């Protein structure tokens, strides 16, 4: 005999500990199984694209800090690259290397939170994330040394960086690079073979490669599904073509693979930083750029591989001091399209894990 059940609607969020910010899932459940899901967001829509239209090009840099607030340096870099493309600004070699170092440090910092929060969702309440925040604090210390802020850096400028690195930065970075691989090994020891982690995340929330491409997923979500696509290799920007690194990919496309990809990416980032520090040239840290940039009429698109995926900035200029249109290709928003695909058919308890494995930042989703 089969029991007849009635589907009912359950709200998860918008203020829920496991939703990584203010995000709401309107799930339709049949018993405990999710039969339909509608993501509702906009609880953090702050109108960044509209605000940018009334600010000068330089005044938008603080706004980009607050888009993906776990990876502010990457956002700074992507936006500055778009303006440099639009206005034809040259970037000195030293600045390019420093930007790469900072963007990769930022990727590690962001993945530490991404992985830690994923384990928080898995039920390993606080222990992994406290270890990972300890390592993140070291990176935050390095960034604070550069620009005096811990989260919203506002450090990159058109044609380079706002200031040169202080003399104590490279020794501190050296120490960090020596310590970090051992800590990543430690996380693997702590988590990788854990039975509970394996049982709860293996084969959970599988996203096949074709679907991942069709929904325009990028970053660890796409690579977790086994697609070897990384903007740093596919469309090298800055000086990434001078470094050797691998693109880690998953095989099954499940939550566990997405977590593994992030951990492996941290190791690859360390490799890139090692090479960049070794090759770091001298010279100016910024080219001469007027205070108010006035790009010619036209449009430009620049994209980078941020911690969450293919982060792009599309700018339209009308030869004034403010952009005519400022659009962000937000990887978090587009990766969320996969959520419905991954959730339907799973139980509510798995929904939290699948959602955590996508690793979104609401500031970027809603903008």
């Amino acid at each position: 005999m089969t029991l007849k059940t009635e589907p009912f609607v359950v709200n998860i969020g918008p203020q829920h500990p496991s939703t990584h910010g203010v995000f709401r899932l309107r799930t339709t459940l049949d018993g405990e199984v999710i039969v339909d899901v509608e993501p509702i967001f906009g609880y953090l829509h702050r109108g960044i694209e509209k605000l940018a239209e009334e600010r000068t090009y330089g005044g938008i840099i603080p706004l980009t800090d607050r888009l993906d607030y776990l990876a502010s340096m990457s956002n700074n870099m992507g936006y500055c690259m778009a303006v440099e493309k639009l206005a034809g600004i040259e970037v000195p070699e030293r600045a390019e290397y420093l930007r790469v170092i900072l963007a990769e440090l930022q990727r590690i910092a962001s993945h530490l939170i991404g992985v830690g929060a994923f384990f928080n969702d898995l039920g390993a309440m606080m222990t992994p994330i406290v270890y990972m925040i300890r390592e993140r604090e070291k990176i935050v210390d390095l960034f604070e040394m550069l620009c005096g802020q811990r989260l919203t850096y506002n450090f990159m400028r058109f044609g380079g960086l706002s200031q040169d690195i202080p003399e104590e930065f490279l020794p501190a970075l050296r120490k960090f690079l020596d310590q970090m691989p051992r800590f990543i090994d430690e996380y693997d020891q702590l988590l990788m073979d854990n039975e509970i982690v394996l049982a709860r995340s293996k084969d959970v929330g599988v996203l096949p490669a074709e679907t991942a491409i069709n929904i325009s997923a990028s970053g660890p979500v796409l690579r977790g599904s086994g697609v070897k696509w990384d903007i740093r290799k596919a469309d090298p920007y800055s000086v990434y073509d001078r470094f050797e690194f691998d693109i880690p990919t998953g095989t099954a496309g499940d939550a566990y693979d997405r977590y593994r990809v992030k951990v492996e990416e941290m190791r690859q980032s360390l490799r890139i930083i090692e090479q960049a520090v070794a090759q770091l040239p001298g010279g100016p840290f910024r080219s001469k750029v007027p205070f108010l940039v006035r790009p010619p009429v036209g449009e430009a698109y620049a994209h980078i591989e941020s911690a969450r995926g293919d982060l792009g900035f599309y700018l339209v200029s009308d030869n004034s001091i403010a952009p005519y249109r400022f659009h962000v290709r937000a990887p978090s928003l587009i990766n969320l399209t996969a959520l419905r695909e991954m959730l339907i058919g799973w139980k509510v308890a798995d929904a939290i894990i699948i959602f955590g494995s996508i690793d979104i930042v609401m500031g970027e989703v809603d903008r």
Partner: protein
Amino acid sequence: MKFDHFGIGIAKGMAVTLKNLFRRPVTVQYPEQRLNTSRRIRGNELVWSKEKCTGCATCAKACPQGVINIETSANPDNNKYEVKKYEVDTGYCIFCALCVEACPFNALYMGYDYERARYRRGELVQSRDMMTETPEKHVSGYFFPDRAASLPLQTLLVEKITEEE
């Protein structure tokens, strides 16, 4: 659920936890013990120099927020602007330091102080007198490397943790 690892994974995890028990603690006992913050810290206040300011309002134009409220009047005696009012609403400021970078006369600095919580919203507005540089009010070396050179080095977590092998 299959236990094909026979609990080895959990035992390995416990070993890591045990190892962390013998590491030096990283906690800062904040009110008694303070971190040396970065020499370029952007604290929650601005420091303004009355002598150097000419009242050109470049800072107010550079501010993406428009938090700098500056009123000047022409002084006919020495043919210069006199700054009547210089106000910053630190409850609205985002401490991006674009004003500090823009000032052509080096009259504006970021401050060191971050302990500026208040019970009243109105008290967050920094008036001209609260912003003047005094010996107690430390000035950060943000954007001024020569000032930063004399300031103490930052305390780093990376130096505090030592691995016990």
